[in-house]
C-alpha cells in the first residue's frame, strides 16, 4: 500500500466526489446531508400537483351543491390549497409534503434543523418567481447551477431539500481469519478495506474480486487471493468479536 509520507496515516478523509453537503455543528462533528437533484424534486412536485388537483376536484364537486355559501367556501379552499398546501405539510409533517414523502425527500433549514413557518412560507411564496417566465425555468436553472440544488426560493429562505437518511441494517462480514498487517494503513485505505468487506454481500463476486485486486495490488498479493486477504485484514481491523 502506498505511503506518500510517514505522517499522513491519520490525515482527514479527502472531500467526497459526490454532491454531499457537509455541515459542522457546534459540537465539532461533521454531519453530511445529501441534497436532492432536479429530477426527483420535479417528480415530487408532480405528485403533489396531482394530489392537489384531485383534492380540489372532490371538494368543488361536494361544495357545488351548496349554492353561494359553497362558492365562497370553494374560493377560500382554492386559495388555501394553492398557497398553503406546501407550507402546512412542510411545517406540520417534518418537512415532507406527500410528494416528498413518497420520493423520500425532506425540506430542512441550511443548518439541518426542521423547517419552521417563516422559512417555509418564504420558499413557497417565492415559488412565483421560480415559475417565471414559464414552467419553472428560473427555478430549474438555479437548481442546476447550484452545488446544493437550490431554487431561488430555497436561496432566499435558507432551506435545502435533502434525501431522508434511513438507518441501514448491520451487514454480515464474510468469514476469514484475521490478519494483522505489519505496517500502518492510512485512514482512507482502512475505510476502503472495511467498506469492501461490508459491501461484499451487495456486489457480484466478479466485481468484488476485481475491486480487491486493485486495492491489494501494492501489497503483492496474487490477485486470486486478494479478496480473501483483504477480508482477513478487515477482520483484523475490527478486532475480536
Amino acid at each position, binding site marked *: 500500500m502506498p505511503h506518500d509520507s510517514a505522517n499522513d496515516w491519520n490525515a482527514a478523509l479527502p472531500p467526497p466526489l459526490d454532491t454531499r453537503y457537509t455541515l459542522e455543528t457546534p459540537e465539532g*462533528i461533521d454531519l*453530511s446531508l445529501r441534497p436532492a437533484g432536479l429530477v426527483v424534486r420535479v417528480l415530487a412536485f408532480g405528485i403533489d400537483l396531482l394530489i392537489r388537483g384531485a383534492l380540489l376536484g372532490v371538494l368543488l364537486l361536494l361544495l357545488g351543491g351548496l349554492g353561494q355559501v359553497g362558492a365562497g367556501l370553494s374560493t377560500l379552499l382554492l386559495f388555501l390549497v394553492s398557497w398553503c398546501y406546501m407550507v402546512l405539510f412542510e411545517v406540520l409533517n417534518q418537512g415532507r409534503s406527500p410528494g416528498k414523502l413518497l420520493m423520500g425527500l425532506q425540506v430542512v433549514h441550511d443548518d439541518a434543523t426542521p423547517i419552521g413557518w417563516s422559512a417555509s412560507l418564504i420558499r413557497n411564496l417565492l415559488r412565483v418567481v421560480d415559475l417565471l417566465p414559464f414552467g419553472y425555468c428560473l427555478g430549474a436553472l438555479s437548481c442546476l447551477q447550484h452545488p446544493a440544488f437550490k431554487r431561488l426560493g430555497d436561496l432566499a429562505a435558507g432551506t435545502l431539500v435533502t434525501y431522508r437518511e434511513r438507518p441501514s441494517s448491520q451487514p454480515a462480514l464474510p468469514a476469514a481469519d484475521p490478519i494483522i498487517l505489519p505496517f500502518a494503513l492510512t485512514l482512507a485505505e482502512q475505510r476502503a478495506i472495511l467498506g469492501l468487506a461490508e459491501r461484499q454481500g451487495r456486489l457480484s463476486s466478479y466485481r468484488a474480486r476485481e475491486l480487491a485486486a486493485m486495492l491489494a495490488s501494492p501489497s503483492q498479493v496474487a490477485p486470486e487471493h486478494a479478496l480473501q486477504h483483504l477480508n482477513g485484514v478487515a477482520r483484523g481491523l475490527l478486532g475480536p468479536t
Partner: protein
Amino acid sequence: MKQSLFESRHQAEWQAFGSVLDDLEQPSRKSASPSDFSARYRRLCNHLALAADRGYSSHLVDTLQHLAMRGHQQLYRHRGRFLADLLGFILAGFPRQVRAQWPFVAVAAGVFCIGLALSAALVYRYPNLIYALVSPEQVASTESMYNPDHSRLGPAVVRLAGEDWMMFGYYVMNNIGIAFQMFAGGLLLGVGSLFYLLFNGVMIGAVAGHLTEVGYGGTFWSFVVGHSAFELTALVLAGAAGLRLGWALIAPGQLTRGKAVRDAAKISIQLVYGVVLLLLIAAFIEAYWSSKSDIAASWKYVIGAILWLAIIAYLVLAGRSTHAPD
C-alpha cells in the same frame, strides 16, 4: 481500541439514545425531553468523532451520523410559543418592523399613490382613456356594479348571507394572491414589486376616476371607504416587503448577495405576515360592512375615516414602549 470492542462497549447507550429520539419524534408527544438529553447527545457526538478519526467502518460511522443528525434536529429545533408570539407580533412586532423599514414603505407608498392619483385625474379629465386601460366589457360590468339605480349593492336588492360568504372568499383569494405576487416580484431586483405597485395603483385609480366621472361616485366611494384603509395599506406594505428583498440583491453591503437576501427575506416575511392579517380584516369588512346597503353613506364615510386614522395610528404608534407586551 478495536472497532468490535468500541461497539460492544457503547451499543446499549446508542440504542437507548435511539429510543429517546423515537419518542421525541412522535408528533403527538406528551412527555418532556429527558433532562440529560444534551449530555447524551454530546457523548454521541464524541463517539462519532472518535469513530471517524479511528477509521472505523462506514456502517458504524453512518449509523452514528444518522443518530447524531436526529439528535441535532431535536436539540436545535426552533420551538416557538405560537399564541404568545402571534400576540406580541400584532401588538408590537409588526408596526415596529414597518417603521424600521420606512424607506421602502415610503417608496412603495409613493409609487402606488402617484400611479393612483395620476390615472384617476387623467381618466376623470379624459374619459375615453379608461378604454386604453380596461376592456369595454369590464368597464360595463364595473359600471353595472356601482350603478345607483339597479346595483346589487344599491338599495333595491338586499344581499343574501350566502352572497356575503361568496364575496368574502373571493376577496381573500384575490387580494392575498396579489399581495403575494407583489412580495415575490421583489426577487427580480425589486422590478416586479414596482411593476405590481404601479399597475394596481393605475388600475384602481382608473376605475375610481371613471366611476366618479360617469356619476356613480356616491355608491363607489361609500362602498370602498371602509375596507380601503386595510386593503391599500396592505398592498403598499406587500410592495415594500418586495422592495426590501430586491434592494438586498442590488446593494448587499458587506454581505454576500446570498446572505443579504436570506437576511432580507427574514425581515420582509414579517411584513407579509402582517399584510395577510390586514387583508383578512379588509376582506371581512368588504364582505360584511361595505356591502351593506341599508346604512347611510354618511355613516360609511365616518367609519371609513375612523378606520383610516386607526390603521395609521397603529402603524405609527403601536409598540413604541420598551416593555415587552405580553
